[in-house]
């Protein structure tokens, strides 16, 4: 049993980022920034078609280039186990299952020689017919067994059709979101050294122990002989949550030059088809309400893609199961397996696209019923979690909406769309709700007394920009009753006790719980005064309240949008978010987490789309020039607030995850504001100027 953390001297303190000084100086070494003697450079070769077979590979010209050490192909690559995840089983056959798939790699003494030689390898293929186009009525659509991570794919509760038929107000709308890419600023990189003694990887990853386990399994190694080092990670957003195929390629190449470090950094064009993405979605939402706006039925029906070789089912409609009260409810996910790269996690998988649709539909209902969109949400607050019947451990949605309305200046807003002009700009405002579940995984922490009131805390957590270096030390300080400066924290290395992935906004909950548990044990074993050298290693226990309460964070987004009536360009003038996410461990780093999510949500609303040319099965937006992520000029001053929330159920710190909720609902608030500004309901993201032409 782990006790609640009652000392709150360090937790809650506004502190500078612990790794900030190293980072502003550029001295925090990311994965690729190892410069060992004798390093070799690897450049991958990509499949030129979306489906087919390699008939010949001619590497002669490449091998003749000065400095080239070898060319890897399916003809000479080591065999990988049959049961390995299919996207990782590269170079096992001449089959091509998506365009841009790794079909080989060139290893050379210098990056220049490797790149030059890669351009000389000739890959001949027999192309087969492919299909990369998701469609609502695709004949191959199927219902998966579960959706990520293990929710049912379908739920049905009550008589949805009957309730919809007799509802006073109803909306029946379909939204589309495109394929998205995580695009962390640090691309996926690996530096791997393979020797008889073992394998060492510097990997840009959200999960050192996960990478270790996967590499060991793929290559038949004892995990103890594999070490994965990742103290600093240049963003991930889910894209580095699992090992991707580039690291497999690097390990294969490293085996050919034992003892020599092999360096691989993906270019954007190599990364886009090989490191995960968010599926496109088509979402039909039907809402039925009484005259006063109370929902009688909610239906959320989703179509999305997966790859033909592996199934990843984004849980797009899952938040709809717990968000609002309704007498009848149906949710369903269908997948179409296509000749596309394998989709994977991207910031708030499920909630991000799903809440865009639900929260947009709520706005449409508010317009149809003539009810203020905030009031509409308040009227549909459930007393208990509609999906489980359990009470919420805390539910701050209404508080967030009310506080946001106050701060944003919502009162007196004229609901009439398309009537506010400022010169050629049309102006409008919108609101949307946010939610994200509290997940806890498993992790182990070690706490060691150094004497003199100083402690070492070790756990293989990863800081991908979230602030783990900072907040875990704050938590440890309070758990041990010392100052933050007395904590020596080590993370980001699989040689440390195992930690769960930095994903699902579960890092602080999981790792913090492990640290508090180990600290409490150490103090208890030594009457509160452990001597130098005393040490405890402890696991984060499962949450004892998991079966009794539903645990989620909530939030509310407000946006003011200006739309150029000549060009159709939409710009966000103001954005404000209020969140209820339990205890905030460090206000400074927390604000950044929320803000970062909101910024990515702004990009999702207005800019981001990975576009497939279905004729060729090719992604035609494979870099940062074609795939526009929000830039400085796109992002206004953002306001972030939170309400004080005491939640004794979630974990000893009372904190909820904050890495993902900032993006959830943000695009809906902006889309709703675009409608309020223009009267135009754009139901397909991103809201680009072509969709807002002819406003006059």
């Amino acid at each position, binding site marked *: 049993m782990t006790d609640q953390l009652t000392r709150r001297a360090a937790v809650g303190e506004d502190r*500078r*980022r612990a*790794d*900030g*000084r190293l*980072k*502003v*100086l*550029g*001295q*925090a*070494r*990311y994965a*690729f*920034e190892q*410069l060992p003697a004798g390093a070799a450079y690897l450049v991958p070769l990509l499949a030129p078609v979306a489906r087919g077979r390699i008939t010949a590979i001619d590497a002669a010209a490449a091998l003749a280039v000065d400095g080239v050490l070898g060319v890897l192909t399916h003809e000479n690559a080591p065999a990988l186990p049959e049961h390995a995840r299919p996207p990782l089983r590269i170079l096992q056959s001449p089959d091509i299952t998506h365009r841009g798939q790794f079909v080989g790699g060139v290893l050379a003494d*210098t*990056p*220049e020689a490797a790149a*030059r030689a890669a351009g000389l390898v000739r890959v001949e293929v027999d192309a087969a017919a492919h299909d990369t186009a998701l469609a609502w009525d695709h004949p191959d659509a199927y219902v998966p067994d579960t959706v990520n991570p293990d929710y049912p794919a379908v739920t049905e509760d009550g008589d949805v059709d009957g309730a919809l038929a007799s509802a006073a107000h109803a909306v029946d709308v379909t939204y589309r979101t495109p394929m998205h890419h995580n*695009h*962390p*600023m*640090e*691309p996926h990189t690996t530096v791997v050294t393979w020797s008889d003694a073992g394998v060492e990887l510097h990997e840009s990853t959200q999960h050192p122990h996960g990478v270790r386990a996967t590499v060991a399994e793929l290559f038949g190694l004892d995990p103890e002989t594999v070490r994965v080092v990742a103290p*600093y*990670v*240049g*963003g991930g*957003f889910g894209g580095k949550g699992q090992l991707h195929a580039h690291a497999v390629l690097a390990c294969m190449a490293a085996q050919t030059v034992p003892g020599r470090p092999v360096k691989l*950094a993906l*270019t*954007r064009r190599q990364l886009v088809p090989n490191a995960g993405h968010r599926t496109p979605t088509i979402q039909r939402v039907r809402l039925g309400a009484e005259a006063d706006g109370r929902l009688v039925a909610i239906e959320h029906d989703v179509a999305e893609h997966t790859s033909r070789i592996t199934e990843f089912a984004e849980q797009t409609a899952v938040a709809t199961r717990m968000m609002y009260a309704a007498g009848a409810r149906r949710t369903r996910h269908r997948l179409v397996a296509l000749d596309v790269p394998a989709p994977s996690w991207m910031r708030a998988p499920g909630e991000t696209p799903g809440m865009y649709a639900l929260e947009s539909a709520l706005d449409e209902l508010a317009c149809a019923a003539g009810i203020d969109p905030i009031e509409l949400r308040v009227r549909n607050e459930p007393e208990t979690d509609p999906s489980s019947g359990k009470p919420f451990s805390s539910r701050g949605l209404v508080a967030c909406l009310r506080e946001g309305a106050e701060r944003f200046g919502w009162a007196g807003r004229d609901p009439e769309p398309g009537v506010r002009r400022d010169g050629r700009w049309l102006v409008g405002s919108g609101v949307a709700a946010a939610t994200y579940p509290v997940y806890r995984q498993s992790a182990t922490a070690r706490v060691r007394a150094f004497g003199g009131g100083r402690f070492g805390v070790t756990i293989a957590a990863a800081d*991908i*920009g*979230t*602030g783990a270096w900072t907040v875990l030390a704050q938590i440890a300080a309070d758990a041990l009753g010392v100052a933050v400066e007395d904590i020596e924290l080590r993370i980001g290395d699989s040689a440390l006790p195992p930690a769960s992935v930095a994903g699902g906004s579960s890092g602080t909950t999981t790792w913090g719980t492990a640290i508090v548990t180990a600290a409490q044990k150490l103090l208890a074993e030594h009457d509160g005064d452990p001597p130098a050298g005393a040490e405890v290693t402890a696991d984060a226990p499962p949450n004892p309240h998991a079966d009794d309460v539903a645990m989620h964070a909530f939030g509310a987004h407000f946006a003011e949008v200006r739309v150029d009536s000549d060009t159709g360009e939409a710009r966000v003038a103001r954005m404000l978010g209020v969140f209820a996410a339990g205890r905030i461990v460090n206000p*400074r*780093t927390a*604000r*950044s*987490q929320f*803000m*970062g*999510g*909101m*910024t*990515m949500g702004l990009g999702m609303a207005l800019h981001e789309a990975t576009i497939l040319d279905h004729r060729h099965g090719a992604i035609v937006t494979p*870099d*940062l*020039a074609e795939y526009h*992520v*929000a*830039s*400085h*000029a796109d*992002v*206004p*001053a*953002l306001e972030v607030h939170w309400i004080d929330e005491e939640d004794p159920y979630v974990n000893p710190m009372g904190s909820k995850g904050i890495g993902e909720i900032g993006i959830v609902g943000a695009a809906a608030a902006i889309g709703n504001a675009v409608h309020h500004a223009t009267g135009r309901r754009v139901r397909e993201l991103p809201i680009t100027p072509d969709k807002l032409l002819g406003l006059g």
Partner: protein
Amino acid sequence: MLDITLTVDGVTRPLAVDPRTTLLDALRERLDVTAPKKGCDHGQCGACTVLVDGRRVLSCLTLAVQQDGAQVTTAAGLGEGDGLHPLAEAFLDHDALQCGYCTPGQLCSAVGMLDEAGRGHASHATADVAAVPTLTDEEIRERMSGNLCRCGAYANIVSAIREVAS
């Protein structure tokens, strides 16, 4: 291989480079200078921004041999001695970084940008191109738009720059 000399953060570093080597790769892969980051290698992200003879340059878009004899300043060399540059201090105060990967580029870009504005360079956001520009938030955002931050620290980066600029 061609012999060149780069002065990096005040230290003279002679080296022999492949003529195809970019300034960025020369710094990172030859000299172990880690402050300039590689986010795209194509001039699309700004992570590799350094100051060359005081002006901001995308080091992935220039060849090392073109910079023979140049004074290169990276984020590691912006401050005086062991102290941080005031902009770097402001970045820490405003939490203008998360993963930190874009950060050295943002800082070099900001230093170069403030210098350009001080010398009267106009930007797309400048209403009167003949007047000395005032660094409004809109001007800062426009002038910093070559530096992407996927973590979304923009709002804090702008506050940090504004504080130092004023």
